[in-house]
């Protein structure tokens, strides 16, 4: 059933990573992603791999879940690696077959790029797996607050995100109900060519839009009744507060990143 699709893929838990302040998580995980791209040789990449693997273990979420995250884009990884393998020309030719030439350098570089992509995916999955959508929204709102100076409606954007998250399951359920109702009137949603199928969606999309508008209107009235007037003067139930563990996480990540830069200088670069 479509309503079973979970959004955000948050996996509740009580690990050290789960308990980190969401803002700190966003900061350090973004830093890690940037530094993954700065790793230039096997030593520095090895350090990043090792550290991210350690973090994975710390989340106490089964590695299978991370593989599942990778499954969605394995094709992209394969494609970019193959492309790199073929494009990058080095001195040590390994295979030459028609117009294709594979060199040792090309092989290294494509492996490196694949590793980068895998790490980026694993790090971002880690963020969404260990942080609830609500916390994520609150953290983004807080981190982006400085943009208010440039008249970016940060609070309003965060509110929209929250409402979207709240209503996605409701609307999915509604879609299913409307589909069933039209099927009960003999609508054929499963057969026919592209055009016919696209046309068959009209009886589902129109009621869905109309009901979404009705919901939006009613929700707006309900929010008015609860004295919502935008972000100004609002307080929060859960105030984000940095704790000792957040400082610790920050120092650890900073140390790893610095170490990686140092390792970059110890061996020749494999990518440019």
């Amino acid at each position: 059933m479509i309503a079973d699709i979970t959004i955000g893929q948050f996996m509740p838990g009580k690990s050290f990573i789960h308990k980190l302040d969401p803002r700190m998580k966003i900061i350090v995980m973004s830093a890690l992603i940037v530094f993954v791209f700065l790793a230039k040789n096997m030593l520095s990449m090895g350090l990043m791999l090792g550290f991210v693997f350690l973090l994975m273990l710390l989340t106490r979420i089964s590695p299978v879940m991370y593989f599942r995250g990778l499954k969605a884009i394995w094709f992209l990884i394969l494609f970019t690696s193959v492309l790199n393998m073929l494009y990058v020309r080095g001195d040590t030719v390994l295979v030459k077959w028609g117009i294709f030439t594979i060199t040792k350098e090309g092989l290294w570089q494509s492996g490196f790029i694949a590793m980068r992509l895998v790490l980026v995916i694993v790090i971002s999955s880690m963020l969404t797996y260990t942080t609830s959508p609500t916390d994520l929204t609150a953290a983004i709102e807080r981190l982006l607050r400085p943009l208010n100076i440039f008249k970016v409606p940060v609070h309003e954007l965060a509110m929209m995100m929250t409402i979207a998250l709240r209503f996605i399951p409701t609307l999915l359920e509604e879609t299913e109900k409307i589909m069933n109702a039209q099927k009960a009137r003999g609508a054929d949603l499963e057969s026919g060519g592209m055009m016919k199928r696209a046309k068959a969606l009209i009886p589902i999309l129109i009621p869905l839009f109309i009901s979404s508008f009705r919901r939006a209107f009613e929700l707006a009235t309900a929010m008015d009744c609860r004295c919502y007037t935008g972000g100004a003067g609002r307080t929060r139930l859960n105030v984000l507060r940095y704790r000792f563990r957040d400082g610790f996480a920050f120092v650890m990540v900073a140390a790893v990143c610095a170490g990686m830069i140092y390792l970059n200088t110890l061996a020749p670069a494999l990518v440019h």
Partner: protein
Amino acid sequence: MALIETQDLRFVYGKGTPFEKEALKGATLAINQGEFIGVIGHTGSGKSTLVQMLNGLLKPDAGKVFLNGTDIWAKPKEIRKVRFEVGLVFQYPEYQLFEETVYKDIAFGPTNKGITDKDELDAIVRRAAEFAGLKESLLEKSPFDLSGGEKRRAAIAGVIAMEPKVLILDEPTAGLDPKGRDRILNQIRKYREQTGSTVLLVSHSMEDIARIADRVLVMNHGNVEMFDTTEKVFQQGEHLAEIGLKVPQVTQIFLELKKLGADVDTGVYTMEQAKAGVLSYLRGSETEGGSGA
């Protein structure tokens, strides 16, 4: 032979997920041509799952549904045909309206059924609109300009227009005011009298069921708890209360009387029966221990 028969229907939602829920645990029942069946049971009793199996929207995990003696899933590719035979009106059906005019919306079902002849379609649409109590003048209006009760009836007309042998209505009066409710119940009663169709009405309102049904199907925890004449079902007031269902208020009066020690028949479920029953009880001293209707 019964029109609809089910054998040991079973169904589990969300199999293999943490939200797994057994909705039907072996429902067996038979419904005859022309019967008016009331279906009651609280939310989660399996009644919605059951009705969606009767028109092939849900496929049972085990068990069979027979329509006119034929297994509806014998040819899974032709399951769509079953939906024209067994018309299902969902809860809040007005949310499925989508066409520019009421007329076109009512024509959606019969067109899907394959009716292409313009005159034939026209006759069907107008007749369905009449059964639903929609005035001719409404047919060319946008369905979204109708009142709440009219929208509901337009949506019901859209199912009636498929000319099904069986009409199932899932809480057709939910959220309506008493006037809108009475209107719909009267139209359904008229429709059934004039077409002789079989009708299943799912409702939370015992008063509505008591007023209109010949037989009552009581669902509880995915099982058929009772399936008997309206009188016999409402006689079991205490049993119904045990499974979290109420009885009509008039029945409650008689159950209360009995509790007080009065010798009355508790199989009373309409106002007429109640009036006769109470009169005979009050005159009891003359007529010697008179019990109700």
